[in-house]
């Protein structure tokens, strides 16, 4: 069963503030005209306001549109509450994103006295009673995760759709190709070029035809998905993530005011991003041997580089020094988006103790700074290079996951509210 919170961020804001209910509300990355709309309430959607639009476009459609900045701790608490509620039915839950969860209800004791649809209806009722009366979810029930996701998208808001072997032809006959998650312009064109023009034709095509249409094994994966099998390529495992398969840590930031790569104010943002990334890496018990940095310039061109080191990177200074020297090789253009990441992770218990006391001292200082921040909050202590920062990196919810995200610090939130 796929459970999807309708218009998640906007609905949670309306849940928190009852005065916003019934009004067109959007949550945008930035509340200014060029901020990108991340979520629109059902009232805003009815007026034609969509995710991805600019705030300015939204206000042209609805001049009284309420525009709010994201408040991640609210969304995380609803996510955690929903997870807790769903866990009372099964332990096999995959958290796909901040607003989407998939439950594997196979062999669950609840099915002995209830149907899947009964469970879905009960979940909806309990969400209203236990999490918030304004929060609604769309549930999709199907033999595999992909079809369950498709089903959850067919009826919004507050929908409940089941796809079975018996009704799949009827369901697909009412859809278009681009209604399928993962089929947008590119894939749709590939299918059309192969003579597959409708969802039914897509469903009835053989695995060989689909492999030919996609020109890869992807076609076979599509065949499996559409016929109710798990293809294993798109989703996380149901079993709890132990963190052992963590491949990288990263942070990114969209600058309110673009800065060139040689501007010390951009280096301050770099310092903050590397600190956030380093804290998460160390908290999870890793060191990194590789670092990467990428930028998007104001003309929408990209620059990216990465480097593998022969030694372990652990301290904030290690990361900052490595990344700043990499950034110096970037074209000197105004940067709109700055992203950093580290990879080639190893457990910190495997880290070699250095022969040079200065290096060990640096690691000890970093651990001490982390301990101070654990006790008193993020950024209560920071390097002098970050003094008088103009642009502060805000807490954000990443697309496609909620793991490894720290709770926003309260001081950070207050400062943000004072700015907005």
């Amino acid at each position: 069963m796929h459970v999807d919170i309708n218009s998640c961020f906007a609905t949670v804001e309306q849940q928190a503030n009852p005065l916003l209910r019934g009004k067109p509300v959007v949550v945008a990355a930035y509340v200014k005209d060029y901020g990108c709309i991340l979520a629109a309430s059902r009232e805003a959607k009815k007026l034609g306001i969509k995710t991805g639009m600019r705030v300015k476009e939204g206000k042209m459609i609805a001049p009284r549109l309420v525009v709010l900045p994201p408040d991640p701790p609210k969304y995380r608490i609803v996510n955690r509450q929903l997870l807790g509620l769903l866990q009372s039915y099964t332990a096999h839950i995959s958290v796909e994103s901040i607003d989407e969860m998939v439950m594997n209800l196979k062999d669950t004791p609840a099915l002995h006295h209830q149907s899947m649809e009964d469970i879905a209806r009960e979940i909806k009722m309990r969400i209203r009673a236990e999490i918030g009366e304004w929060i609604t979810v769309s549930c999709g029930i199907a033999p595999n995760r992909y079809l369950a996701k498709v089903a959850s998208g067919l009826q919004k808001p507050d929908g409940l759709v089941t796809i079975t072997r018996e009704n799949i032809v009827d369901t697909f006959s009412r859809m278009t190709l681009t209604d399928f998650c993962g089929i947008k312009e590119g894939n749709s064109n590939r299918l059309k070029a192969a003579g597959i023009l409708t969802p039914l034709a897509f469903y009835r095509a053989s695995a060989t035809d689909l492999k030919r249409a996609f020109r890869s094994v992807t076609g076979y994966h599509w065949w499996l998905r559409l016929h109710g099998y798990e293809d294993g390529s798109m989703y996380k495992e149901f079993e709890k993530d132990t963190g052992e398969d963590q491949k990288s840590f990263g942070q990114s930031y969209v600058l309110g005011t673009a800065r060139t790569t040689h501007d010390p104010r951009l280096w301050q943002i770099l310092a903050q991003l590397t600190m956030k990334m380093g804290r998460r890496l160390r908290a999870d018990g890793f060191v990194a041997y590789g670092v990467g940095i990428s930028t998007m310039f104001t003309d929408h061109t990209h620059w990216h580089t990465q480097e593998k080191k022969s030694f372990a990177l652990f301290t904030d200074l290690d990361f900052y020094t490595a990344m700043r020297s990499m950034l110096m090789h970037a074209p000197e253009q105004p940067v709109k988006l700055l992203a950093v990441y580290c990879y080639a992770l190893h457990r910190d218990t495997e880290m070699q103790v250095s022969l040079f006391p200065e290096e060990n001292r640096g690691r000890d200082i970093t651990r001490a700074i982390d301990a101070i921040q654990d006790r008193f909050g993020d950024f209560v202590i920071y390097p002098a290079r970050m003094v008088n920062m103009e642009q502060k990196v805000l807490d954000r919810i990443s697309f496609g996951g909620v793991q490894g995200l720290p709770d926003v610090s309260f001081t950070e939130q207050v400062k943000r509210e004072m700015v907005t």
Partner: protein
Amino acid sequence: MSETINEPVSVTLWSNHKTRKVLPYGLYWHGRRYQITTIGLHHTVWEGKRLFHIFSVSDGSTFFKLVMNSETLAWTLLEVDTAN
């Protein structure tokens, strides 16, 4: 229109040991008492080891965002929003 306040306030609480719920029901601010009728959302944030409880509440015509510092038990009114 939302307005940032960030001022200390007095709050009366309702507590139920059976449901293990503690909720604000009265707010005293600028010499006036506001009867809280709706708790929209209760969430928490950490600042280091300090836990803050944030209550998004309403008296029917005004929205209040209140925070309680669980270390000092002090309440602060963070934000006010009226229906206009």
